[in-house]
């Protein structure tokens, strides 16, 4: 009997498709083998730098404070760093002016002062409008309609120079590296990499609270609640003016409540949520017609039924499917995701606003910080395992984020000591320092005799107790003039009420004081030259005597003129004065965003209670090395790493570098 069967074209395409891939891979393999002799010959003619060490590993612990480190070493809680200090080197490390991470890490990477790398603060400004902007990158839309991000940090990281000379280089999580720069090594972006919504990290929290509200650090949204489920809509990125969203459902039963769990249904998949515990990273694909935008987020279900509360971390770019590159080469973030699983890509991934706004508890915030830290440990140790020669650097942020949130004022503060700290909260920081020390121990264990390890921080830390609203001071002293208030607005942020035709000086960001200079600012009124110089001298004199009415003490330790402390082609856009606050003081929250109303002095009542935006002499960083370091021209400074490491590979440091090389003594 004859049986007729029909085989559709789909099966044929499937067979042929996989066959073509197989043939393609085979041909590529043959090509690689055939070209091998030529590549060997070419490599013989490439002038490779010879390294004194097999590997140079530099670990950054953002914000590690030398005083605390010393105390913990003395009390036996940091034995590994203590061993490094005893057998090698431990000292304070000079930071930049101002000692703020984007500025400091840019100087570490490039070996130059801010006047040559153009990062003077977290914020710069649009000279046409004076609106504050992120200083590290610019997002523009090209003529063809595509959106492009551009890195504004100038000069070159020293590992680019090493890679040019054939040294294998990996730079993980170096701040101010988004978008990633092309070079002959590998890099993973960090601080200032945006989230999927284009913000610097915006959480979402869903609850039964009826009103929707947008708060400083996140979105608070309602859910439709019934007996056994909650329905909500998670906002995603905006595409062509439309916000993409993902509807979701959280389901529970009496049995699952008893077992402290529920089920999340989102983007076509179900995930188990344990009440009170973070979910793993969940892949979220937002769709609009043929366009797909890929993100990841973690969910924390804090309560169900009548107490429903669901926290969602900022939507991170998916490292395994980056719609915007977060690494160089682009495939590197994908490779790391294959090695260690999904991981946070957001620049400042630890959700400090979640804690500040009471959405997260202290424990939940700390757990999030530790989880992110462990991801970075995994990517670092994998890179260390795979990279047998060359240069490897990685920056860990947990020390910085924990100190920002836990250098707390005691509940019943001693009024005679404004910098007093809450011991319970402080112990959380000590534990994190000890955790970092334990990690350093594991690194030391994996290094060989011909490997060099250096550990550094970009700045130290201090308490942030009092806010100084410099724009209010400028207003009160006649340097800044307001116009009639815009009735539509409740606030004066972003210089909304400033009359630029009568304003000579203004402030924003975390350290700078700017002149409204003719020829630079679009509405500038101060003439460069004598008028500007006299104004700077006048400001210096008046600000130097600024006293806190609560204590009567002077609040500024040093005032720096950028024209005197910076050199390089970009210094003309820097603030004219950089304020070196005494410990305990900082630019107020209002001044930071260009607000102009309110009082000059106020208490900092925010949960963000530790800071480093003070005089650089108040908050030096740390430097550890597993060998002795001999410095010559000045005590160790962040700018010295570039020439020091280049010399280890017998590369003459370029003339534009500002740092001075150290001798590494065996």
């Amino acid at each position, binding site marked *: 009997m004859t049986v007729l069967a029909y085989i559709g074209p789909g099966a044929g395409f499937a067979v042929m498709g996989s066959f073509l891939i197989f043939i393609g891979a085979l041909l590529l393999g043959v090509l690689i083998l055939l070209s091998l002799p030529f590549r060997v010959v070419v490599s013989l003619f490439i002038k490779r730098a010879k390294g004194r060490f097999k590997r140079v590993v530099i670990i950054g612990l953002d914000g590690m404070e030398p005083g605390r480190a010393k105390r913990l070493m003395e009390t036996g809680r940091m034995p590994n760093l203590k061993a490094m200090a005893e057998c090698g080197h431990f000292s304070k490390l000079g930071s930049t002016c101002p000692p703020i991470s984007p500025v400091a890490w840019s100087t570490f990477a*490039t070996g*130059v002062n801010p006047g*040559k790398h153009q990062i003077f603060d*977290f*914020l710069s400004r*649009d*000279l*046409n*409008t004076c*609106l*504050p*902007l*992120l200083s590290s990158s*610019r*997002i*523009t839309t090209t003529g063809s309609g595509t959106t492009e991000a551009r890195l504004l940090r*100038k*000069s*070159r990281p020293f590992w680019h120079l090493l890679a040019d000379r054939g040294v294998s280089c990996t730079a993980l999580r170096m701040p101010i590296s988004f978008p990633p720069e*092309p070079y002959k090594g590998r890099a993973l972006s960090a601080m200032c990499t*945006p*989230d999927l*919504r*284009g*913000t*610097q*990290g*915006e*959480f979402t929290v869903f609850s039964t609270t009826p009103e929707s509200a947008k708060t*400083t*650090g*996140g979105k608070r949204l309602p859910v439709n609640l019934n007996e056994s489920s909650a329905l909500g809509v998670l906002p995603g990125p905006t595409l062509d003016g439309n916000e993409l969203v993902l509807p979701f459902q959280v389901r529970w039963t009496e049995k699952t409540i008893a077992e402290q769990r529920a089920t999340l249904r989102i983007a076509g998949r179900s995930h188990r949520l344990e009440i009170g515990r973070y979910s793993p990273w969940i892949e979220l694909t937002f769709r609009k017609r043929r366009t797909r935008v890929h993100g990841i987020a973690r969910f924390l279900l804090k309560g169900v039924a009548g107490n429903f509360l669901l926290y969602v971390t*900022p939507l991170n770019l998916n490292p395994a499917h980056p719609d915007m590159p977060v690494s160089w080469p682009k495939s590197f973030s994908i490779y790391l995701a294959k090695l260690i699983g999904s991981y946070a890509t957001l620049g*400042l991934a630890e959700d*400090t*606003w979640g804690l*500040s706004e009471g959405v997260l508890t202290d424990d939940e915030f700390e757990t999030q910080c530790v989880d992110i830290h462990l991801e970075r440990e995994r990517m670092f140790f994998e890179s260390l395992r795979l990279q047998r020669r060359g240069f490897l650097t990685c920056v860990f942020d947990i020390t910085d*984020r924990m100190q*920002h949130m836990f250098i707390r004022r005691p509940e019943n503060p001693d009024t005679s000591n404004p910098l007093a700290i809450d011991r319970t909260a402080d112990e959380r920081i000590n534990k994190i320092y000890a955790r970092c020390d334990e990690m350093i121990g594991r690194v030391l264990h994996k290094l060989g005799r011909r490997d060099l390890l250096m550990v550094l921080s970009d700045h130290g830390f201090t308490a942030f107790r009092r806010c100084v609203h410099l724009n209010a001071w400028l207003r009160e002293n006649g340097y800044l003039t307001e116009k009639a208030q815009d009735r539509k607005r409740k606030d004066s942020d*972003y210089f909304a009420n400033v009359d630029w035709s009568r304003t000579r000086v203004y402030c924003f960001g*975390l350290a700078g004081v700017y002149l409204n200079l003719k020829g630079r600012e679009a509405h500038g009124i101060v003439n460069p030259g004598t008028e500007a110089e006299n104004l700077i001298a006048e400001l210096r004199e008046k600000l130097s005597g600024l006293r806190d009415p609560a204590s009567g003490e002077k609040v500024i330790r040093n005032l720096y003129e950028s024209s005197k402390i910076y*050199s*390089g*082609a*970009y210094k003309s856009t820097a603030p004219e004065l950089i304020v070196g606050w005494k410990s305990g003081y900082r630019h107020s*929250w209002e001044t*930071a*965003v260009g607000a102009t109303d309110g009082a000059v002095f106020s208490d900092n009542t*925010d949960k*963000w209670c530790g800071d480093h*935006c003070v005089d650089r002499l108040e908050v030096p960083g740390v430097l550890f090395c597993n060998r002795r370091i001999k410095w010559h021209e000045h005590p160790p400074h962040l700018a010295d790493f570039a020439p020091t490491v280049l010399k280890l590979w017998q590369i003459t440091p*370029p*003339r*534009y570098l500002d740092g001075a090389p150290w001798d590494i003594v065996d």
Partner: protein
Amino acid sequence: MFEPKIRINKALYELVEQKADEEGYSSIDEYVTHILEKAVADAGENASEEEIRERLRGLGYLK
């Protein structure tokens, strides 16, 4: 990798190279880019206040 390139005269290139070195730039590319940025007044991105607020939202240092 596939960024546009500009062709210039060799003598001019050498002058530019010398100037870049004197001014403390890390490369000729950086120097030329800076000059061009200034020439086209690339000071801002013409973003609205609301767009700027959105981009800065979530930065712990700012409220």
